[in-house]
């Protein structure tokens, strides 16, 4: 135990480890806050779908030789999020099918483009790194950390500011509209914020594992608590704890960061399910 602590103290001397923890905590917090809403709105898989869209957008940006891929990724991911969340339920292709369609379509096009046009000498490594996060979170610069801090502050502020509206459209959109809440506007807000969280979270866990950050904390909290506020708070705390534990374990044990965080999230879900079973909470 002492040697692990010594190792951690040693690793904390490296700025990139501190940056990873800061960004990990912030992304985990933001994704958990909106994860509850997404899960309750039956959009659990939207993180997965949008991250694949972001992967496709990144491939397009690479092909176009754009130095900064982020703007294109954000624009395409946001448009897809708006399409899925705002209009998805009123089109012929409904929620889950629309997500699946966009998800696999973007993944396939992205990989195809990278194969056909990529100049990288390590294509499989590039793709794998994007899909599974690899060590991306440990390669952040100070500017990127600040960007994440600012965006996370905005996301949390928006959530707190529009908490009541988000609550009402989460449970009954029609009732919320009837009582004067501009449901379309708030759905748009949720869509944009979801896209921002997804693009940021690609650094942390990679495209394939983003859904875990969105759904695991929310589902775990729902095993024990029954009201929206309690679930949201519990989900946020659990998500942050799991992200910190995951990053620390991966740094000490040398395991992949993304999958380690998701494994800790899964363990948290099992623990909360057991607590829920014994305490008579919601199953």
């Amino acid at each position: 135990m002492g040697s692990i602590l010594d190792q951690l103290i040693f690793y904390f001397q490296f700025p990139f480890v501190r940056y990873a923890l800061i960004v990990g905590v912030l992304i985990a917090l933001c994704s958990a806050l909106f994860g509850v809403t997404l899960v309750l709105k039956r959009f659990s898989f939207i993180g997965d779908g949008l991250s694949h869209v972001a992967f496709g957008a990144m491939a397009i940006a690479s092909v176009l030789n754009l130095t900064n891929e982020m703007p294109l990724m954000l624009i395409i991911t946001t448009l897809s999020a708006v399409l899925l969340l705002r209009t998805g339920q009123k089109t012929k292709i409904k929620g889950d099918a629309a997500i699946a369609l966009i998800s696999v379509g973007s993944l396939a096009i992205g990989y195809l483009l990278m194969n056909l046009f990529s100049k990288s000498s390590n294509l499989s490594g590039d793709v794998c790194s994007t899909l599974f996060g690899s060590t991306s979170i440990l390669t952040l610069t100070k500017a990127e950390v600040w960007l994440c801090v600012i965006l996370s502050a905005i996301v949390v502020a928006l959530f707190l500011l529009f908490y009541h509206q988000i609550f009402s459209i989460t449970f009954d959109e029609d009732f919320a509209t009837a009582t004067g809440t501009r449901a379309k506007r708030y759905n748009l807000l949720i869509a944009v914020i979801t896209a921002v969280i997804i693009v940021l979270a690609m650094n942390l866990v990679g495209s394939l594992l983003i859904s875990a950050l969105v759904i695991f904390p929310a589902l775990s909290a729902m095993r024990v608590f029954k009201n929206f506020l309690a679930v949201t708070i519990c989900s946020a705390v659990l998500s942050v704890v799991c992200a910190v534990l995951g990053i620390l374990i991966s740094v000490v044990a040398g395991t992949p960061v993304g999958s380690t965080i998701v494994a800790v999230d899964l363990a948290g879900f099992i623990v909360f399910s057991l607590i829920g079973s014994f305490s008579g909470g919601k199953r």
Partner: protein
Amino acid sequence: MKRTLLLLFLILTLTACNKDPLISASAPAQSERSDSSAERSQDPQTSLPQASDRPIDLTVMSGTMVYAEVYQMMVQPENYLGREVTMQGVFSVYEGSNRNYYACVIADAAACCSQGIEFVLEEPLKYPEEYPESGSEIKVQGIFDTYEEEGYSYCQLIHAKLLS
């Protein structure tokens, strides 16, 4: 209106981000300095907190830390110039037209990416007889340095010794 402006601010703030593209490296590890990596180099806060002459022993770090630290060496070589580096990895040889390039390559935790550092032995050995077999595990120690070749900047360990 205020909310619309807030959303616009959100999007505009994101466009300021300048994330490096995917990590990729081929053996022997080379650091082609792109514009973005040059920008990274200007950020002194991302350098190690250790004294500039303190040795870097990558053999005592976990796989994840080693990969991240070698990545930092590739994108910010100026922070590591002149420091003694000890690393353990897989021996790799690239036979160039003018000379052979020998490198110690490490893989990331997901085992999908690899990067490494070229080394030049202090006491040259005869290749292939006296060098380890390509793909075998080696431990190498040398002084971190950079050099220019055909317009590109590369990292290497000079005055290197094969420890195992």
